[in-house]
């Protein structure tokens, strides 16, 4: 196995070549903040919260940057702290996030991240966009007001369930998650009703219709358990 040695926050470590900086840091006991990353899904660098300073280049997204020989990486600097808080503030400004009336209040990765980056208020003005809620599916709902476009739902449906119900439609401020090339979710035959997209949603954007405030069954960790189980069934590599 090819290996490379690097330093992350002054900790020397050796990892397999190709390992992402996010996973390499985790092996060194350093948890880099992230919202779009989820173990078991292809990394996409959508949220940019995992930006790290690398001596050879400007800030890079740790989830999509491979460790390289001799690299020196910093994961927590004043610049990165400022960038991360600003990114979370932009997410709050971009959508309509009202924790008090959200199903995910108290169990929301965006809310937890806001606390972690020290966002005691939003320095940016709110945009208050006019967005819709799709309740056409018999079991689940999609509230675009709460979506941060992390694309976990898109990836889990395509890569794990194999149904590929979701895509990212439109661009810029009109960018949103679409089902079946922009149909109401309930009209999409390829949806198997498995609920994986709901389980991995970091906010209250995707939810079970029967649940109400403070009753948000989001279980992103179940994906890793499922994938481990599948690997065991397929036999030793």
């Amino acid at each position, binding site marked *: 196995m090819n290996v490379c040695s690097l330093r992350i926050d002054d900790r020397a470590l050796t990892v397999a070549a190709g390992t992402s900086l996010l996973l390499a840091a985790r092996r060194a006991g350093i948890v880099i903040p992230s919202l779009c990353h989820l173990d078991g899904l292809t990394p996409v660098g959508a949220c940019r919260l995992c930006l790290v300073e690398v001596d050879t280049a400007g800030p890079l997204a740790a989830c999509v940057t491979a460790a390289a020989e001799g690299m020196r990486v910093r994961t927590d600097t004043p610049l990165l702290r400022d960038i991360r808080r600003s990114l979370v503030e932009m997410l*709050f400004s971009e959508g*309509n996030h*009202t*924790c*008090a*009336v959200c199903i995910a209040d108290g169990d929301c990765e965006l809310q937890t991240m806001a*606390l972690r980056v*020290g*966002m*005691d*208020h*939003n320095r940016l*003005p*709110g945009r*208050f*966009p*006019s*967005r819709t809620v799709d309740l056409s599916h018999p079991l689940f709902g999609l509230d675009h*007001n709460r979506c941060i476009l992390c694309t976990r739902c898109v990836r889990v449906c395509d890569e794990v369930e194999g149904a590929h119900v979701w895509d990212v439609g439109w661009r810029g401020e009109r960018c949103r998650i679409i089902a079946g090339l922009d149909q109401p979710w309930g009209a999409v035959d390829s949806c198997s009703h498995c609920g994986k997209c709901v389980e991995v949603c970091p906010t209250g954007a995707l939810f079970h219709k029967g649940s109400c405030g403070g009753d948000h069954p989001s279980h992103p960790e179940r994906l890793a358990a499922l994938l481990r189980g599948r690997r065991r069934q397929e036999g030793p590599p």
Partner: protein
Amino acid sequence: MNTEQRLRLATVWLSGCSGCHMAFLDLDAWLLELAAWAEVVYSPVASDRKVYPDDVDVALVEGAVANDDNLALLLQVRQRTRVLVSFGDCAIHTNVSGLRNPLGAAEAVLQRSYLQLADGSGQCPHAPGLLPALRTPVLPLHALVPVDVYLPGCPPDPARIRAVLEALRRGERPRP
């Protein structure tokens, strides 16, 4: 801030549900301790005074700015207060008070509340000079005046309110 004399404390209620004030009252017996070192000079729940006084040390301001009265009072509070605390999620993020922002003008909410959901005899309230005009969009305090301390929560936990007031008494500015 006065250290010899009692701290001059105000609590203010703009557009919010008063839940933050209820959380403040939930401090129960500690309020007696507070009264030993703080004088409540203006408050919807602990004072009869109708006009915001001068020379206030600390003001807990609940609620967002959703109408002209809110704005006028906030400007007065800022002018007459040393430490302005943005008190609760409506003050900080507009929260429930700001749910109407994506709908555009306040007229949409008035129509829905007073006409569409009425039993046939509904009419939109209109009493200039008596009812303050609604503002669009609903804004958090720091979008309009400088804020010194942010005390989040819907409502803020009473223990957190107490911790902030005790820190301010010691002359500290609590930060997250």
